[in-house]
Structure formats: C-alpha cells, structure tokens
C-alpha cells in the first residue's frame, strides 16, 4: 500500500444460495439447483472496495456471471470454474486464499460476511495469516491506513487498520445502486482468468466432513387463534395466553 493507492481483492459469489436448495418431504436437501450467488453482503463488500480503491481485482468461485464484480469497479476477474464446494468451509477458504496469493501484492481482501457461510471469510484470513476483521459495516482510507467500523454485540467499534487485512463486510441493506446495463455490458469485455484448485495449490483439510442425515425441522407447537371471523375473540385469547405465560 502506498499513500496513493490501495490494492483490493473483492471476493464475490463464493457460496451457494440456500434459497435455491430444494427440500423434499423427507427433509433431504437437493443442492443441485443452488448456484453460487452474490449475497447482499457481497454487494456491501463491493461498495467498501470502491470506497477504498480504484485498483480492484475480483475473485470468484464457480460458473455463472463472472462480470458481477467487473460491473462494480473491478478491473479484472480471477475465477475457479469448478470449485467443488462441499460441506467443509475450510476448503472454500483454502481456494480463496490460493486465489489471493495468485493475484499477488494485495493490501485489502474484502468478502461478504455472509450468513450463508459464516466460517469461510474468517478462515480465509487465517489461511493467509493476515489480521482479519468480520462484521465490518464501513471502511475508508485515513492517513496512511484504513478506518474500519465493525459491529460488535455491544455496539459498533471503530478501528485503525494497517494493511494487509481481510475484511468480512456485513450488509445493512440490499444493494442500493446496482449497475446499469451499460456498466454490465462494459464489464463483460474485461479480462477473466480461469484457474483450477491445483493451479492455486489448494489442498483439502486432512479430515473431511460427511453428510450423515437430513430431516425436516420439528413441527411447530404454536397455538394459532383464528382472527378472520372473530378478531376480538382472537385478540382476547392471545392476551389471555400471554398473561398466563407471565409476559404481560
């Protein structure tokens, strides 16, 4: 990092979208329909990257739209088209760390701190051996370093950060200004470099995780009062139930 420039890697589409997974009547989950997708947190990471730098290289896993980050400011994209993402988040992190090392001299790595996989972004920092902050809601340059706000359980905390650093960025809302068609078309002309896990020197953890079963969640025991025909009666029943529980 120099006084003039910060080089960022923006990681996007590194997790499967659980909304697309299909659940059978027996509780079995079919992930084959769940594509790698950009989360709201990925979009928040893109905003943070643009606030920090004009020098952004994107890194993604899987097939799909490799121009997503290029349309949001990245100059080029490195992709691992066949990442074989499974149950082990450390594999995701090892692949991503290989990608960051391949990109080379990097100051800040940004990824969405995504509820779809709360493990991979922090494991990425560990793989790289870099200082890591998760729950980041704001990052900007200040002086010779960065000023980062992250969410702690007790409130927000502001930190002064000297790169290199991994920032896992938390979205506070859906993407406010998605790129227009012109930016998307221009992004598709930017370079894309395809890599394999072997190219990146990624090796799996010694132990592996296996899927041992899947079931539907236990049925709810909620007591539902019918309020459509008798609003007053349902309201009275609910208030009586809450008083009986001792919460009113």
């Amino acid at each position, binding site marked *: 990092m120099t006084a003039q420039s910060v080089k960022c890697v923006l990681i996007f589409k590194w997790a499967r979208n659980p*909304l697309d*997974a*299909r*659940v059978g009547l027996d*509780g*079995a*989950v079919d992930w084959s329909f769940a594509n790698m997708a950009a989360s709201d947190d990925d979009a928040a990471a893109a905003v943070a990257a643009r606030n920090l730098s004009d020098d952004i290289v994107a890194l993604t896993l899987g097939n799909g739209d490799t121009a997503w980050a290029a349309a949001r400011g990245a100059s080029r994209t490195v992709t691992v088209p066949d990442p074989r993402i499974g149950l*082990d988040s*450390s*594999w995701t*992190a090892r692949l991503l760390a290989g990608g960051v090392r391949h990109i080379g001299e990097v100051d800040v790595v940004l990824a969405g701190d995504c*509820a779809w996989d*709360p*493990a*991979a972004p*922090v*494991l990425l*920092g*560990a793989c790289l051996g870099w*200082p*890591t*902050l*998760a729950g980041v809601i704001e990052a900007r340059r200040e002086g010779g370093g960065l000023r980062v706000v992250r969410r*702690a*359980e*007790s*409130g927000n905390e*502001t*930190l*002064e950060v*000297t*790169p290199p650093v991994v920032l896992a960025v938390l*979205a506070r*809302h859906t993407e406010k200004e998605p790129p227009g068609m012109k930016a998307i078309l221009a992004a598709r002309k930017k370079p894309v470099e395809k890599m394999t896990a072997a190219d990146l020197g990624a090796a799996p*953890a*010694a*132990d592996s*995780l296996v*899927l*041992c079963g*899947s*079931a539907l*969640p236990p049925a*709810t*025991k*909620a*007591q*539902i*009062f*019918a*309020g*459509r025909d008798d*609003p*007053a009666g349902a*309201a*009275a029943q*609910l208030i009586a139930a809450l008083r009986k529980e*001792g*919460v*009113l």
Partner: protein
Amino acid sequence: MSGNDCWVIAADTGPIAGMIAAARSLGGKITAVAAGGRALADKAAAAGPDEVRWFAPSQGSPPETLAPAVARDIAAAAPRVILSLPDAASRVLWAAAAFALGAPAAGAVTQLRAEGDLVLAVRPAAQGKALETIGSQGLLAAVFDAADITYTGPAAPVTEMRPAAGEDKFAAALRLAPGADDGAPEESGLRAAARVIGVGLGVRKRERLAWAESLAAALDAVLACSLPVSDDLEWFGESRVIGISSNRIAPQLYLALGISGQPQHMSGVRDARIVAAVNNDPEAPVFNRCHYGIEGDLAEILPALIDAVNE
C-alpha cells in the same frame, strides 16, 4: 487429538452457556477461551466449562490481535472439537485455531453429539427448511449459533494467559480508534426491553403505526421493525431494526406484527422467551417460529388487541 475434548471460544457476549451445554453432549473435557475483559472471563466461567483460559487484549487492541496466541494454545492442547460464538471477533480467533489444527470447518451448528467414532453436528440448511447432520471421524471446527441457556452450576477456575513473544504481531495492524467509541447502534432501549413489538411490511399503511404505538404503550413495550420497514419505507431508523445483522434481542415477549418471519429477522429474536405473531397469511413462516399467533387482518386485529389489553 484428545478424546472428545472441546474448546469453545468467546470474545464477545453471546450464547456461551448454550454452546457449552451443546459441547457437553460430546462427553469430553470443555475448555473455554475468553478473549476480552475480566467480566467476559467471569461470564465464561459461570457458563459451565471445566476451565477458562483468559486472554486479555493489550490496551487499545481488539480481541482479534490475540489470534496467534489463542491458536497456539488450542493447537498445543489438540482438542477434537473447537466451537466459536457467532460474533465477529470470536469467529476470527476460532478460524486461526481451526487453521492451525487443520480442522474441517462448518458454520452455524445448533447441536452436537458423539456417535461411535463420529462427532456429529446439526445445522439448519436451505434457510432453515431442513436440518442437516454432518459428521467427522477426525477433528471438527464449528461456529455455534443457537439459543443460550441458563447455567446454575459452580463457576470454573480461570487461568490468566499471556501471549508469548512475537504473538502480538497483529497489535500494530489493528488498533481501537481512541475516542471513537460509537456506542451501541441503538439508543431506543430495545436491547434491554422486556417487551418488544416488531412492525413488518404487512402493516402496509403508515397510519396503522399509530395503532402499533398505542399497543406498545398499553403493553409497556418498545417498538422495533424488520429491515425493509427501515430500509425501504424508512418508518424507523436503523437502530430499531431487529435481525441477525442488526439488533439481537432477548425480551420476555416479542410480538411480530405483519412480519413474515424470514430467518434473517427471526434469528434476532431467537432468545426471546415468548414469540407471538399476527399475520394475514396462514402460510407465513413466522407461524412456524412462534409460540402463539393470530391469523387475521391487522386492520381488525390491532384495535382488538388494544381493547383486549385495556379491558
């Protein structure tokens, strides 16, 4: 690898006792790492582990600077399982230890058990529509994300730990900004409230907020909202949003009005004692995540609830 021993990591407040209770199912010794102030170490000690190893960050440093020291300590003990609270700082320390051990890792597990030579972990899949059980014949590193419990047993002994020479290398890179304490992201008393009413998009019309306010006054409750009500409708500020990336609360009563019950929102009220919901959609997911509900039109139910409370 030592039996089914488990190390749990806490660098912030969270469901420590729930995490330790889940780890108890494995049958091994439980060691808690508390990375923070003495109060956090005492909280961890009172949550039911066999021992606590307390790492205090140096002045002006966040807990993440302890990652090399915590990872070295855990790797030396070589436990079979390491668990983390779901907060940002705990996960960073956990990741350093998981990587040092070379453990496969999983996010957001809710239960653990040992079966034969496997350690098994249950986690929600497909946005909570299913529960997957994953297993490892060797090590397992997992982020624990489930409700807390109350532990009433004796407190565990606390041993103060200090980073070895060179293990504070991150302290120069991560510094808490002096005088920039942003304080809590909420100033509405939301987190301490005994009763909270959440307003969702199903309320539909802003003028109905007056009813919600009347009901809140009658119940001595604090008003809060789902993310779209703040973000899209801007009826409330961000400080009133409940959800996994906003405010997580643990009131006696959470009453969800016109809230569909997406996991992102409901995770924020997981520790509420009683959840009640009013929604006009009988298929709304919130009805699978509440104790009591009314299926009906808020325009009719809200005034009826106010009358019922005031009777």
